[in-house]
């Protein structure tokens, strides 16, 4: 186990140091004093686990490829943007736009996330144990989002591909456009149970519903929606 004091390093030096430790085969790295640093963990590669004691800023673990990055605190916006593989575990909350355009790997947020969780996501798993804000899963092209708590309005707006599981009883009323709301399938229950088991989550997969892209794939947009009053329009 190696301890790195982030307070003594500029962020690029920190990431470089982490990457060289990982390349040398170090399996366990502890980072202290992250000081809400932006871009912490950019493009880290290889195996190993990095635990950050404290909160981080924007773009935590962007372009991650391989390692497990544990943030024992909060993260700012855009956590795990464009990540390819590996894991990002956030013990507290993540800001808005968590996991944007992520391609693979897993993000687990123990607390809540802001709006647009998983925006434009292309693959991987994004698991939020708390609640999330508006437009969760907007325009996803793949991957799976699981929200244990409440969701905001515009859920799954215009998904192209991918899957969202929710158990917020109000979820259906908060659906965005161009998505469908279905009971969870047997295969999905099984796969979700595995995800929960992997991350020690106590929840019944059967209590979830599935938000999916429209079967036709053809989106419809309303640019003008006149609110006519009365049956005769007067």
């Amino acid at each position, binding site marked *: 186990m190696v301890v790195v004091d982030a307070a003594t390093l500029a962020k690029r030096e920190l990431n470089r140091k982490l990457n060289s430790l990982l390349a040398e085969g170090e399996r366990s790295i502890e980072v202290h004093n992250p000081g809400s640093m932006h871009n912490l963990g950019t493009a880290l590669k290889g195996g190993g686990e990095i635990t950050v004691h404290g909160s981080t800023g*924007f773009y935590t673990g962007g372009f991650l490829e391989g390692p497990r990055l544990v943030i024992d605190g909060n993260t700012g916006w855009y956590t795990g943007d*464009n990540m390819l593989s590996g894991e990002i575990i956030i013990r507290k909350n993540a800001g*808005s736009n968590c996991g944007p355009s992520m391609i693979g790997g897993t993000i687990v947020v123990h607390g809540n996330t802001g709006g647009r969780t998983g925006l*434009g996501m292309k693959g991987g798993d994004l698991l939020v144990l708390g609640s999330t804000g508006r437009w969760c899963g907007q325009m996803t*092209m*793949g991957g799976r989002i699981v929200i244990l708590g409440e969701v905001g309005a515009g859920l799954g707006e215009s998904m192209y591909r991918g899957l969202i599981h929710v158990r917020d009883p109000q979820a259906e009323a908060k659906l965005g456009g161009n998505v469908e709301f279905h009971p969870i399938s047997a295969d999905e229950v099984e796969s979700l149970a595995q995800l929960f088991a992997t991350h020690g989550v106590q929840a019944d997969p059967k209590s979830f519903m599935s938000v999916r*892209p429209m079967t036709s*794939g053809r*989106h419809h947009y309303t640019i003008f929606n006149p609110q006519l009053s009365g049956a005769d329009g007067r």
Partner: protein
Amino acid sequence: MSEHERHGASLEKSTKDPAVREEAHSTWSREVLSEIRYKAEHGTHRIRGCGTPRPFPGFNDLTVLPSQLTRMAVDTYREPCETRTVLGKRFCTQPLVVETPILISGMSYGALSKEAKIALARSTRMVGNSINNGEGGLLPEERAESYRQVVQVLPSRMGFSLRSIEAADALEIIVGIGAKPGLSGHLMGSKISKEVAEFRQIPEGIDLHSHPRHGDIFGADDLVIKMEQLREVTDNRIPIFIKIAAGRVREDVKIAAKAGADGIVVDGAQGGTGAAPVVAADHMGMPTLPALVQAVRALEEMGVKDEVSLIVSGGIKDGADVAKALALGADAVALGQSVMAAMGCTVCRRCHTGRCAFGIGTQDPELRARLDIDTAAKRVANYIKAMTHEAVILAKASGKTRLRNLEREDLRSLSLEACAMTGVPLVGTDFTFTEPFGFF
């Protein structure tokens, strides 16, 4: 004959009267009527390919002054004039070096056929310039053939990953394009073939209105941090450009420069597209000429004109445009519609239908087979060579041994409008209207 029929017959007669028919109506033109009919029928706005057909003031409204007694001409045929151009050297270690300051702009695989993309890429090896992948991923065939490869970072991030960054000679973060600023990529269902759909991770045959904003850049402050991230990912090796549609150019360029761009691409309102709402193409944005002037002013006001490369696009068609753009302060230009035209496109503006008869803007296997890749590549290379000749001819005749030595003082405006817009003096006077452009 009823009253109505009589009225109809007399109308018919009157429209056949040559005196009446020849009179073009300024408001209810054929195009306007066609637009109205389309909207009346479909209840929605119209989509079209290519750039706007509206006339805008452009580089034709400027003329280049020849050298005579004030300076010596350089021999067109026997003396050298440097065209090699280094772009984006501000913060990176390997700037983009091209043999001519004429680049191929980002046009997506999807909007264009694979054959057209390969032909464009192949042409870059003949002239030593760069191609840009455009939206929806980097075709391995394009990368294999390109001399220099620019890779776009688009809001949709379709087909984009760390792997595309590794394959790039330069990155270009897209904020918008001139043909439809503020709107996202449109790719109509007829062009989303199985292959394109798989490449982009979207369902086959849908009408795609892709992501309008970057999921990981919500505003200029975030862009600053994003740029730092991309610098780190690229290890400062390759240049990072930011492409904007010409709108509030002076401010936008300053923001892009402040965010740390090595180069800024400004795409004027005449710029091409594979598909855009007609209303956006026709009624939004600033034409290329005044946009370039605004961009130059912005960089000069910040004192970074020599550091930040400026690339301009939108309606660039010949070497005279290139020479004038460079004289005004551009470091390079980028081409879309004109290289399509070099491959055989007639700018019919029906790219969005996917029925391109020349195999360029289509995914239909039969139509695609009509484009001969080698011939198309050669024609594009020829066209860019000839354009470079033209620019060099003008530069040498005005006494320059380097294309980039063309300067504002070499230009005069041919119209009041161009003069007022650019601050370049009107021919026959030493006067400008509004803000002068800094050489008197």
